[in-house]
């Protein structure tokens, strides 16, 4: 018997031989009966005209006809916009510079693609392009940071005050309002400030205060003091010292009857506020008081 022979039989498609064989089987009579009775089956009543009336009166009268003139064009328009947006944002995101920012009283370390290292002091920001790093080692800096540069191509730090370029060394750049200091701890650093190039050998500093290049003493140690949680100053006006204090502790410093242009030489701790305040006030012969997040420095003989 061929496949699906019952269906063939019902449709009268069996060959004479097959039909004869099927008639021999016990089930034949049952199938004849089934064919006969199932032929008398009926489905429920369905009034075509009534249903059509209902359709026309109740449904189609209210249903708006949708006639789309060219649905594919519309699809293409939407697709094109999406493609443009996607590729655009891809390139935009890709070309964006990497940026690392520290808040007040915060420090951060980052590793550059060539394993050069940057340690960011409080309230500072560096940005660089990760994609173009191999062509151009360029870092933009606001604030203060210590650089340990891996040997390689020219490495440039751009700031508002000038640029610092090196080939591979360790140096610190502090770039604050009215204050620009570069200290070289190892190797040779070239500082370009107002079209004037200065070569800094290891163990020297370059300082610009309010636009004037200052003579500075040789820095101590092999890395900036703030790496060891201390802020070190050598003949720096008190106003800058106060600003650094604000950055390290996220506080507000005010002064009353204090000459903030007085030069301060010394160190304050970046972890113990009371110690830091004493370190500043004692040598300057002033006193202070703390009110919440505010510190007021005032002359000793005024109340």
């Amino acid at each position: 018997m061929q496949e699906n022979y019952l269906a063939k039989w019902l449709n009268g498609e069996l060959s004479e031989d097959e039909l004869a064989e099927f008639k021999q089987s016990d089930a034949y009579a049952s199938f004849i009966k089934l064919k006969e009775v199932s032929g008398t089956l009926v489905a429920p009543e369905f009034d075509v005209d009534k249903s059509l009336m209902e359709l026309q009166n109740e449904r189609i009268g209210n249903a708006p006809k949708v006639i789309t003139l060219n649905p594919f064009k519309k699809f293409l328009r939407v697709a094109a916009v999406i493609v443009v947006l996607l590729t655009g944002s891809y390139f935009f995101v890709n070309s964006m510079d990497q940026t690392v920012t520290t808040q007040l009283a915060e420090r951060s370390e980052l590793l550059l693609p060539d394993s050069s290292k940057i340690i960011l002091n409080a309230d500072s920001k560096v940005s660089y392009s990760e994609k173009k790093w191999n062509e151009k080692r360029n870092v933009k800096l606001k604030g203060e940071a210590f650089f340990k540069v891996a040997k390689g191509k020219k490495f440039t730090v751009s700031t508002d005050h000038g640029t610092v370029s090196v080939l591979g060394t360790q140096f610190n750049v502090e770039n604050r309002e009215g204050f620009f200091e570069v200290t070289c701890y190892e190797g040779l650093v070239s500082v370009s400030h107002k079209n004037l190039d200065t070569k800094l050998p290891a163990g020297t500093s370059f300082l610009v205060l309010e636009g004037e290049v200052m003579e500075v003493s040789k820095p101590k140690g092999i890395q900036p003091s703030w790496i060891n949680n201390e802020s070190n100053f050598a003949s720096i006006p008190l106003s800058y010292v106060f600003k650094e204090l604000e950055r390290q502790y996220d506080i507000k410093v005010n002064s009353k009857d204090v000459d903030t242009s007085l030069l301060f030489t010394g160190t304050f701790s970046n972890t113990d506020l009371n110690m830091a305040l004493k370190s500043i006030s004692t040598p300057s012969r002033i006193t202070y008081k703390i009110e919440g997040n505010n510190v007021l420095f005032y002359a000793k003989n005024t109340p």
Partner: protein
Amino acid sequence: MKNVCEEQLFSSIFKTNSKTVFNYIYYKFGNEEKAHDAVQEAFVKLWENCAKVLPEKAKSYLYTVANNTYLNVIKAEKVRLKYAQPTLEHSNESPEFLLEEKEYKEKLDKALNNLPENQRTTFLLNRIDGKKYAEIAEIEGVGLKAIEKRMHLALKSLREEIDGI
């Protein structure tokens, strides 16, 4: 280009196909009311999209929409079909024969209800609506061979259940 949006053409499509769409849904789910709604639904959709549907595609479009409308909704419901008509009262047959006929029809109804939905639909479209296998294949959107298979299996299981095998 001719399309289904012409009222006359639309009405003629309705007249030739609505009954079968109704039966088709009824065989599938065994619910008269839902079958009725499915007809309305399918033709409203056809009307709304009349510009997009070519007349020769209208038929399969209707079955597809009707089927999709209830596919998920009533799959879970237990089918309770009733097809067999009571035999005419005034016939010349003996009471024994009439009783036997009645019993047979009850068994057939029960066996139909127990068939898988696609076998039942195929079987009844052929037996009640007189649809050829090729037409059923078009309605169901499957090949001719699949319909023959369903038909074969339907006959086989119906006979087995009725004969108590």
